[in-house]
């Protein structure tokens, strides 16, 4: 195989695997609170367990809200320098509340330091994904 073929395969594979930890189906906070062992399935087929401690924290913050889907997706935008976005209005409200930010609705743009702080509090209830639009641009 020539060098350029190996390179193309590597780059395509890296982009394909960038979001392998994305949840296959997100579950509501109610559903997760009712589960004996709260978990979601990821797109690569593995099980992502969610800490009951974090669910209790969210439960205290938003009550038994069945519209809140977990894990909360933080979309990384490769164009900016360490910029992340929360697109869902309810998720944006919850994240703003946790970080003590003013609630301006969705999309909520976060900086890297804020994301790190959020991850410290909600490690298993949040997931970082690379923007699918950015990946699609690369595949073109």
């Amino acid at each position, binding site marked *: 195989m020539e060098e*350029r073929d190996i390179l193309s395969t590597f780059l395509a594979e890296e982009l394909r695997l*960038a979001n392998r*930890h994305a949840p296959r189906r997100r579950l509501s906070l109610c559903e997760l609170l009712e589960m004996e062992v709260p978990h979601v399935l990821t797109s690569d087929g593995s099980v992502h367990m969610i800490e009951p401690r974090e669910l209790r924290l969210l439960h205290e913050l938003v009550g038994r809200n069945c519209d809140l889907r977990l894990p909360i997706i933080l979309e990384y935008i490769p164009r900016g320098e360490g910029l992340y976005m929360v697109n869902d209005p309810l998720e944006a409200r919850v994240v703003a509340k946790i970080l003590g930010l003013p609630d301006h609705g969705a999309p909520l743009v976060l900086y890297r330091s804020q*994301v790190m702080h959020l991850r410290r509090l909600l490690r298993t209830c949040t997931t*970082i994904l690379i923007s699918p639009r950015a990946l699609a641009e*690369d595949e073109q």
Partner: protein
Amino acid sequence: MSSAIRVRPTKIELIRLRRRLRTSIRVHKILSERLIVLVNEFMARLREVLDKRLETRRALSSGYARALMLLGVYGPSLADYLWVAAPKPRVYVGTENIMGVKVRSAVIKYEETRLPPGLEDFVVEARRILEAIVDLAKTEQALYALGKEIAATKRKSKALEHIVIPRLRNTIRMLQMRFDEKDREEKARMKRIKQMLVRRGGPWKSETS
């Protein structure tokens, strides 16, 4: 280290290389961001490990002190009694995904049972010890997994930054220079042909005069 890739000097190849360079830069950016996130997770886990080690030691020393005291009161049959009467914990072991890194995770569940008041406190303390140990194991395992992933991601990111991207840039520059040179040669050739035609008195004469 970086040199040019051997490719056919065609315009199609140049377009392909430019596209590959764009993708490489994007992948490099994604990997760099992933690396930053992973390192941050690693540092957070490192602090967590230190805290949890202290917490486990504290819980263990206090648990042992209480166990010794109970042993003095109830005698050596205490262990047998607790083995039968104390609620058996169930530990569910699964995985947790941190930016594509699979780490072990566990959730402990207990059955509710009634025990004599003095023993109930001890069982609560024993649960705390068990939870602290499982938490510590989870965090340490995550630390190892993250460390390995950081090393792999760093290697890929550095390879892209120092080898692949400069090599692609060099090749593109080389091809571009070659095409520019070809263009210049072509232009010079056309000029010479034009001059020759003018000198011979061809159709160019009327246009130039």
